[in-house]
């Protein structure tokens, strides 16, 4: 195989994307060698997803140019991008459950005569591609009968057989078990052997070192570096480039004495959780760290009563976990994982969003006091410095960070004593992230308890006093945070290498 190609398969020059008031991608220039696995890293909000959207035609750049195999490339929509040889694997599954594997593989590329489907070499080709990538999948099976990992491989096979020379994979291992990840890596390596370029986006740096040939680092919309991974010394080297500082030092032990135990969870179990028990004390910030799918969201939702789990949960001596309503009345509030679909009323204004979790405070015998709603909205918009010109602005028009602050305002208004924060800074820019961390610390300093459920180690190590490590629905280990935490050990535990890990 000829690895010494002259022209890079993909190059971007001076690529810039402006949103009103924000420059999401700022003059980015780099190129990608054919037949390589090129990793794209950066914090949330660094501009990765905007860049990818421009490559796939979902967004058009404000200025700058892109080239595929030396040819100018300006996709107006995803279809054109795919015709130009760039296919994308999104985080959500884009397969049709009701069709067969075969039908999915050919979807949108069918050969037809007068609207009738006709057999063609395409059918053989997609089956060959699928077999080359993953022979265990039956092409005639219905996709609804496949596992998540298998569906993903079907998507990859589709991209590969569509003749794509570049496949973009955005966090492809998010929902996969460790064994499935191994298998996916096998698939990616086989793609590379057949000269397909993979742009691999992941927060899991180990995967990048394991898989990647080269890496491009973005920070705050700017291009920081593009280099072969062999030239990167180690994780902390990469992390330093990503965030421009050494994160693991930001944790300052807080002097607030942690008080009595407020929450006791015993033997929580459901189809995703396996005998999870822990305590949370007054005034402390605890972190639940694990990869996506380790059971973080499930624990948060079980504590909040949003999902059923067996076992017992008591909060300040009272049983909870029956319903969100009961949890809120007992003094527990949740910032859910999906801000837009679970946390916010996007069609309603900031003012109308804030009071919803504590209606008793704003009402008298069922009569609602709008003047207090107004006062509350003004108070919290000021307190959390939510950037808006009007409290009557629809929350869908706010930036991610400000939206998240509105969700926080909801929970603060609820006067909760325990806050469950599920991925509190996902999709939030760096500035807002720091502000949110400060809000969290302030709350704990005033004697409230906070549980942070996060898949960002930096976040957990940065603010939590105590950390629970999760793997595959089980709580593997509890540790106190401090300067001497062993990061290698943590990563080992959450990837399934811990002692007593449930297989």
């Amino acid at each position, binding site marked *: 195989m000829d690895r010494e190609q002259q022209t890079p398969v993909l190059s971007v020059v001076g690529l810039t994307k402006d949103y009103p008031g924000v420059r999401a991608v700022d003059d980015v220039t780099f190129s990608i060698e054919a037949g390589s696995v090129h990793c794209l890293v950066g914090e949330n909000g660094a501009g990765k997803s905007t860049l990818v959207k421009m490559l796939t035609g979902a967004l058009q750049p404000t200025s700058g140019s892109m080239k595929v195999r030396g040819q100018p490339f300006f996709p107006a929509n995803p279809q054109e991008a795919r015709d130009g040889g760039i296919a994308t694997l999104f985080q959500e599954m884009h397969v049709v459950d009701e069709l067969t594997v075969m039908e999915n593989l050919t979807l949108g590329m069918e050969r037809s005569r007068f609207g009738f489907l006709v057999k063609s070499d395409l059918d053989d080709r997609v089956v060959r591609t699928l077999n080359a990538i993953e022979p265990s999948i039956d092409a005639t099976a219905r996709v609804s009968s496949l596992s998540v990992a298998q569906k993903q491989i079907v998507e990859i096979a589709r991209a590969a057989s569509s003749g794509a020379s570049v496949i973009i994979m955005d966090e492809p291992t998010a929902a996969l078990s460790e064994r499935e990840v191994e298998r996916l890596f096998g698939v990616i390596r086989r793609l590379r052997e057949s000269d397909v370029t993979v742009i691999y986006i992941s927060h899991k740096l180990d995967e990048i070192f394991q898989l990647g040939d080269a890496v491009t680092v973005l920070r705050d919309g700017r291009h920081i570096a593009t280099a072969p991974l062999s030239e990167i010394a180690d994780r902390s080297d990469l992390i330093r480039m990503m965030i421009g500082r050494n994160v693991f030092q930001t944790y300052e032990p807080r002097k607030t004495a942690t008080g009595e135990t407020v929450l006791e969870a015993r033997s929580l179990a459901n189809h995703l959780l396996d005998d999870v028990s822990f305590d949370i004390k007054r005034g402390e910030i605890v972190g639940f760290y694990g990869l996506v799918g380790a059971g973080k969201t499930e624990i948060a939702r079980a504590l*909040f009563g*949003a999902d059923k789990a067996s076992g017992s949960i008591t909060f300040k001596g009272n049983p909870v976990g029956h*319903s*969100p*309503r009961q*949890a*809120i*009345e007992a003094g527990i509030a*949740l910032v*859910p994982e999906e801000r837009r*679909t*679970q*946390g*916010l*009323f*996007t*069609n*309603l*204004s900031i003012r*109308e969003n804030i009071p*919803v*979790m504590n*209606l008793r405070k*704003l*009402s008298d015998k*069922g*009569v*609602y006091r709008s003047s207090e709603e*107004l006062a509350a*909205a*003004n*108070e919290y*918009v*000021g*307190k*959390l*410095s939510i950037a*808006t*010109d*009007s*409290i*009557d602005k*629809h929350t869908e028009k706010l930036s991610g960070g400000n939206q998240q602050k509105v969700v926080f305002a*909801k929970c603060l208004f*609820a006067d909760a004593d325990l806050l469950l924060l599920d991925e509190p800074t996902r999709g939030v820019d760096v500035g807002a992230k720091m*502000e949110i961390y*400060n*809000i969290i610390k*302030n709350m704990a300093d005033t004697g409230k308890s906070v549980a942070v459920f996060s898949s960002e180690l930096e976040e957990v190590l940065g603010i939590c006093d105590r950390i629970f490590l999760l793997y595959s629905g089980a709580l593997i280990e509890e540790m106190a945070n401090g300067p001497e935490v062993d990061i290698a050990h943590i990563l080992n535990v959450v990837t399934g290498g811990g002692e007593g890990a449930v297989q």
Partner: protein
Amino acid sequence: MTISAQIPPRTEFTRRRLGDEAFITLLVVLAAVALFLTASLLVPNFFQLQNMINLVTNNWAVISLGVGVTFLLVSGNFDLSVGGVVALSGVLSVWFAQSAGGANALSTGLGMPYFLAIACALLGAMAIGGLNALFVVRFGVPSIIVTLGTMMVARGIAQVITHGSQRNTNLPEEFGVLGNLYMFGTSVKLPVVLMILLILIAVFIEKKTVFGRKTYWIGANAVAATLSGIDRAKHITYLYLFSSAIAGVVGILLASEFKSGFSNRGMLMEFDALVIALLGGVAIAGGFGSVVGMFFGAIILAVVTSAATGLVLSPDWQFTLKAIAVFLAIVVQTWALARRNR
């Protein structure tokens, strides 16, 4: 380091003078007034006080049903069962009140005292609401299908009880009182007064109570509402019971007015209730709309249909006019909101 140290908190923020909802309601009111004035120019004798009163009083039944339907639409759910419930409760009230020994099957009832009869009829109506809630909330079936089904069930029961026609004999004296009671010596009947009371209560609930607010939150985002501690299942159940209770009362009053239980009564009323809500700016996606808007939507429909009659158009025009009116209302609303929030 605290946040307030970085950015001095602002205490007051500019407010928009008029919310989207008030804006749309205002548009609806203006449209109703404009249509009324246009009709006054075109149709002789249209611009009269009595005619204005008639526009409301002739439509008391549909407007009353519109209240329950509006609340449900705001919560993101349909209720197409109300027309069937009107028939059912009317027929039940007649059947329960008819004396036990009649000449034939259709003149023989259960012989209950009148007030017990209407109480039981109301319970029967609310059973349909309960059925709606059960299927929508518990089984998660789309509300449009459920309420179309219960509409047929309710009307079907009414048809079985009346053998497909009506019951109007062997009724106690007091049966015809409620529906024909003139209030305060005017030509206004009790049902109209009840409708006005209902509107006032509904506006109060909608604007001033926690219950009203919850309806909007559920409609805007049911998942977020649940995670914010709102018991969606309970709330939707209340709304369906509320809507069917209104329909039950309407049915009982109509049965009293005509002194009969007719299985085809209330035919297409569910459709008209939906039409006036849509004309009034209630959004089908949920979380948007108001009872006041619905009321003026009803005025719009009444003006259009009565003007059409005044212009000697055949009554067959009503379906076409309704279709055009709803279509225009939806297109204009979408356009106006898009422009405003650009």
